[in-house]
């Protein structure tokens, strides 16, 4: 599937922009590097693909930096703790994740881009927005909140059938993750059912977001190699631009 939205596709340094107000005092024209985001559920092959991309990029002589959810110095530990106890309400959790994102944006992503590095985001704002939308948060509120985010040069959403995700998760850990099953939503007391329902809802939320943010939906049901080929093709073109 290809992006063919009215919105301008991410890319080209001279088209750099924040989705909303962005971060004060940032000079967009100085952000020479590339920001590539890979989205997808656990078991979608996200981490595998990122590892392969890093390998390939570094072998080709590009310096890379990785960011991801819950990796900020500022709040990652507290966020982890809050999630363990499942004690935060939805707006709070949402803002906590936004803080985690903003901290990495300002302290890692923007400086790295300024230094001309390639930043690989193991999930970006779209996963956060999709999760919140599934939990009934207002899309306009989320759009304002994440107006701080920089538009990546490329965003890939690895879409995998929910049934296939179940198989991959179970073969890896022999268990389904509480949050990835959306158990906090009370969709079903049966974790298996809940997982399927939640992942379907997440996929719908991603498709909804795709209309606004115009990212590339990649068929993640295919083999690892085939997917890597798809991603490489796009990124190669992106790197050739400058």
């Amino acid at each position, binding site marked *: 599937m290809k992006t063919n939205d009215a919105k301008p596709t991410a890319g080209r340094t001279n088209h750099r922009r924040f989705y909303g107000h962005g971060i*004060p005092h940032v000079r967009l024209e100085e952000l020479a590097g590339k920001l590539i985001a890979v989205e997808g559920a656990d078991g979608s092959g996200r981490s595998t693909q990122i590892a392969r991309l890093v390998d390939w990029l570094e072998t080709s002589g590009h310096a890379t930096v990785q960011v991801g959810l819950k990796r900020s110095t500022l*709040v990652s530990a507290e966020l982890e703790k809050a999630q363990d106890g499942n004690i935060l309400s939805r707006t709070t959790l949402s803002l906590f994740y*936004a803080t985690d994102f903003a901290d990495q944006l300002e302290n890692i992503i923007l400086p790295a881009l300024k230094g001309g590095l390639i930043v690989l985001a193991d999930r970006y704002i779209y996963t956060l927005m999709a999760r919140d939308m599934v939990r009934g948060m207002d899309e306009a*509120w989320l759009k*304002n909140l994440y107006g701080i985010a920089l538009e990546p040069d490329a965003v890939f959403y690895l879409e995998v059938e929910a049934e296939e995700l179940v198989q991959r998760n179970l073969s890896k850990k022999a268990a389904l993750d509480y949050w990835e099953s959306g158990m906090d939503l009370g969709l079903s007391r049966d974790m298996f059912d809940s997982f399927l329902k939640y992942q379907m809802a997440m996929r719908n939320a991603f498709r909804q977001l795709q209309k606004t943010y115009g990212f590339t939906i990649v068929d993640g049901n295919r083999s690892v190699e085939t997917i890597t080929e798809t991603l490489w093709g796009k990124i190669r073109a992106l790197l050739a631009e400058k």
Partner: protein
Amino acid sequence: MKTFAELNFPGRLVAVEGLDGSGKSTQIYLLKRWLEAEGIKVYFSEWNSSELVKSATSKGKKRELLTPTTFSLIHATDFADRYERHLLPLLRAGYVVLCDRYVFTAFARDVTRGCPPDWVRGIYSFAAQPDLTFFFKADLEVSLNRILEGRPKLKFFEAGMDLRLSSDPYESFRIFQGRILEQYMAMSAEFSFVVTDANQNVETQQATVRKLVRERIDLERFRRRSPLPLPPPAQRTNKVEEMEEDSAA
């Protein structure tokens, strides 16, 4: 922005706002004591006090990790936690909720730090307007002197040092507070602040506060039917000392 009364909540929310050193914490504490003595169901909540979020905030402040954006977001997280877990259920249950600082603190402070006003307001749009908001307005010099009297060691963010207004923390603090006051004044009419002259003595101010609360809120509706259980010890001890130190900065 609708008030809790307009949203048909059985409870009512009273907020106090003002600069550090305006005496607002003393006033809301005395208001709380009075309401408790009257047998009113009352709950007090302080800015920046959610247990879980607090540890991240203080780490961020100590290590000077915060930027205007993360400063704003982490305080919004703290507020949301208290709002969703405490304020809303209590207001549903018919409590009079007292807030030492409310969203207006963020509106004034974050904007002074350079965050776009509509972004900040958008984030806090889940919060309803207090039924009564007191703004304690002292002359800037009075507030500053009250805080700076003992030449305490001003904290980095409290003094607005992150804004690079001046390399002298005291000078920076003065400029920073002055700008925050301007922001407050600009939104005063929009959010129907009851502006109280904080240069007056404590007793006079408290009398005004109690009078207005009685006029605006039908306190009979909030009286406990059963005797008041003792509040948890943490809320009763060292209240005055705690207030001296401004936890909001």
